């Protein structure tokens, strides 16, 4: 996988410091570094958030060690404050920042275009198309970073990160880890006022030198087909372009840009000279299109630039070969070999009646039960719920239907503060443990300080569950299984001076409702902590210990079909028998959390015979 190739490239480049916070589609960079950490001598942290991760890398790189961090696009929003300043101060040791956009917002709250960060911070940016190139570019990025004293962005998208392919691996020749002496003059990395102005001029001059270097870089590839039609593209767009041209049976010239900031303007101008039509294939914003249009004004004013502004491509959503085939065909007046819309329409007919399969809480998930208990506790209470980023974001879906607002990591408490001023209803905020530590603390401090009247429900499951159960500050381990000091949420709250804390066990679902109800009736700010390990995490530990995971079954005699186990609960292990209409539990899916068994008014759910 490309994310693994990035790790391999960094290890071959003798990286010494790794820090990151998980986020799809970059999570496997962190996971892979963590998995192989015991085999190498790099120091690694799974940071509390992306900003801390970036700062950790910055400190090490200022001193002179090679460092790398990876994050999703919205992660760089969090880290951007440090990022912009770091471009001013620069670094000494090579520093690489992998940032992945998520066109289609597969697993993100927005599909923002992270390419804006390169030019706006004057930070060089490289864009690979596949795992082999990603590995090569990581190594190149470290060299560029050290040569110019600036961190380098490696910008990817979901379809690059989650692409697997076969790559050649290079030699791992690593120097033993050694600390360095801090030999910089005082103020070397201090940017403020006069020094900021000095840094700014140096940064602009650096960008000019980088552009000169990129003009001749082999990271940009020209495939000259002696055609008057050309394609300019980068990253995933290149893959779709190559396949689309094959589908259409055409061979235009192709400029695949690997250095997308600073753009090699002379190279692009030279490419445009021979063309009558140039097609820009890029997902999201018309970044390349804007620059190509500007470059064409001098290089070849008569060239026709085809892209988003001409209506051939969209700024929305992920591309694929079909979309690129259609865009190119339309630009060149060709007929696409397949009428994709007709195929899709036919498929839609065939799928009539096929139910959607939304992502949902896993069988055994403690927080399906937490939200069930909350729903019971809020019966008869008009409420507004500010939710947050995590598995529990799914609570806005059927059947829980909780979630009036969701913005970004840690936002629920700030939003709740605003809501409690504005609405008549009871205000509830919901956050997971990892998000709480990531960006929730300032919101909480703010609420306690101002006495904001809302109840915060913290869904504690010991790990960063949604991205694959990585450790977080509440865990007793960190990267590579190394011991770490676990934060205790209630101690943190008490340290801030908040005393109204209610702790419940969601597996004891009926008993959780009363205390929750009482807490919700009190004036805020107060906190309910619902605590149980993530089921996937707990199952993994059980398997490690050799414990069996058994399942429950429904007694046909006892079941009176009230569907308490299904209504408001929606565990995927449960379904209804087509004939006798009684509940059925899948032996393969049930995790035996016993929550449905506790809810059943007829006691019809018991442990399955033979497990």
């Amino acid at each position, binding site marked *: 996988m490309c994310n693994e190739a990035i790790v391999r490239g960094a290890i071959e480049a003798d990286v010494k410091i790794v820090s990151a916070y998980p986020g799809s589609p970059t999570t496997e960079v962190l996971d892979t570094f963590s998995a192989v950490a015991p085999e190498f001598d790099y120091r690694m942290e799974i940071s509390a958030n992306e900003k801390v991760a970036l700062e950790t890398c910055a400190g090490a790189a200022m001193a002179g060690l090679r460092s790398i961090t990876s994050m999703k696009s919205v992660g760089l929003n969090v880290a951007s404050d440090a990022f912009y300043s770091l471009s001013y101060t620069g670094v000494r040791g090579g520093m690489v920042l992998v940032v992945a956009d998520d066109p289609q917002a597969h697993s993100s709250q927005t599909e923002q275009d992270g390419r804006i960060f390169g030019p706006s911070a004057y930070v060089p940016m490289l864009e690979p198309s596949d795992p082999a190139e990603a590995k090569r570019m990581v190594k190149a990025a470290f060299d560029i970073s050290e040569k110019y004293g600036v961190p380098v962005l490696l910008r990817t998208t979901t379809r690059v990160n989650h692409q697997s*392919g076969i790559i050649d691996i290079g030699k791992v020749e690593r120097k033993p880890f050694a600390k360095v002496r801090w030999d910089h003059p005082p103020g070397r990395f201090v940017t403020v006022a006069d020094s900021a102005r000095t840094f700014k001029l140096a940064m602009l001059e650096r960008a000019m030198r980088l552009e000169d270097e990129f003009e001749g870089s082999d990271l940009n590839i020209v495939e000259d087909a002696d055609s008057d039609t050309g394609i300019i593209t980068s990253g995933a767009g290149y*893959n*779709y372009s190559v396949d689309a041209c094959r589908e259409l049976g055409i061979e235009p010239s192709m400029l695949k840009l690997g250095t997308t900031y600073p753009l090699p303007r002379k190279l692009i101008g030279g490419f445009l000279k021979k063309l009558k039509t140039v097609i820009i294939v890029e997902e999201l914003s018309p970044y390349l299109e804007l620059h190509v249009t500007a470059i064409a004004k001098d290089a070849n004013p008569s060239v026709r630039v085809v892209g988003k502004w001409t209506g051939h491509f969209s700024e929305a959503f992920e591309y*694929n070969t079909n979309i690129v085939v259609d865009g190119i065909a339309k630009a060149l007046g060709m007929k696409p070999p*397949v009428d994709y819309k007709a195929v899709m329409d036919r498929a839609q007919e*065939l799928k009539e009646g096929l139910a959607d*399969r939304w992502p949902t809480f*896993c069988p055994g998930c403690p927080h399906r039960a937490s939200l069930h208990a909350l729903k019971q506790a809020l019966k008869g209470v008009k409420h507004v719920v500010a939710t947050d980023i995590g598995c529990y974001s799914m609570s806005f879906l059927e059947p829980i239907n909780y979630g009036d607002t969701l913005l970004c990591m840690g936002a629920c408490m700030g939003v709740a503060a605003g809501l409690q001023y504005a609405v008549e209803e009871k205000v509830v905020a919901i956050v997971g443990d990892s998000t709480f530590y990531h960006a929730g603390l300032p919101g909480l401090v703010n609420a306690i300080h101002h006495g904001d009247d809302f109840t915060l429900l913290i869904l504690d499951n010991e790990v960063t569950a949604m991205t694959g159960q990585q450790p977080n500050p509440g865990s007793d381990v960190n990267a590579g299984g190394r011991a770490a000091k676990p934060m205790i949420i209630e101690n943190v709250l008490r340290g801030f001076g908040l005393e109204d804390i209610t702790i419940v066990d969601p597996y004891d679902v009926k008993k959780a409702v009363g205390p929750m109800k009482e807490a919700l009736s009190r004036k805020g700010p107060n906190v309910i902590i619902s605590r149980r390990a993530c089921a996937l995490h707990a199952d993994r530990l059980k398997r490690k210990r050799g414990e069996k995971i058994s399942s429950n079954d429904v007694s046909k005699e006892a079941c009176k079909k009230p569907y308490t186990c*299904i209504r408001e609960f929606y565990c995927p292990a449960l379904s209804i028998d087509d004939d006798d209409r009684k509940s059925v539990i899948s032996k393969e899916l049930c995790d035996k959390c016993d929550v449905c068994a506790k809810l059943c008014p007829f006691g019809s759910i018991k442990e399955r015979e033979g497990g």
Partner: protein
Amino acid sequence: MADAEFSVYMSGVGGQGLVLLSNVIGAACASAGIRALTGEQHGLSQRSGSINVHMRIGERIRSPLIPIGGADALLALEALEALRYIEYLRPGGIVLMNSRVQHPISETAKHMKDKQARYFSAEDVRARLSQVTDKISVIDALTLAKEAGSALAENIIMLGALSTVEAFPVPVDALKRSVAENVPKKAVDVNLKAFELGRSKAREQLCRVVKCRD
């Protein structure tokens, strides 16, 4: 063989081992010197969501995503997930489908309200699919996996079945070796047995409608 191209659209439900399956095929390609790439769709790690992997084999292919109508085969670890991605299947392409159905909660919700409602079944899926291809093989992978020794081996049952297809350009030996190298150590025997059970099942039915190899 070098120019052979084959794209398999693989789908299933989170927790069924689809990513492992794609890793097994990918590693087999690597060991056999065959160029392969995959595009995976995951991010949310919850179980029970619909997931897919685009598996593409061929020297000249660049995009990890199979185009609409571009899959030579559709391999579904769960029956409904075969129909869900039908637009990817080439007309007349091969469908290898597990007969197991995991009812989506949204469908169960309707069941609760409507006493006459019946679940979409594997047979319903087959009927729909047969409107676009006659090369369909429905395999009870769960039963076979249990016979092999573990309910978790459904993915390898389906791989065994796929390995019989003549147009699938990955050698059977390379696949077997890859299974042995990529599944957990204590599960190697179970999975190799699952591979063979999948192969024999495919010979009974798939090979009647699709050209197979030894």
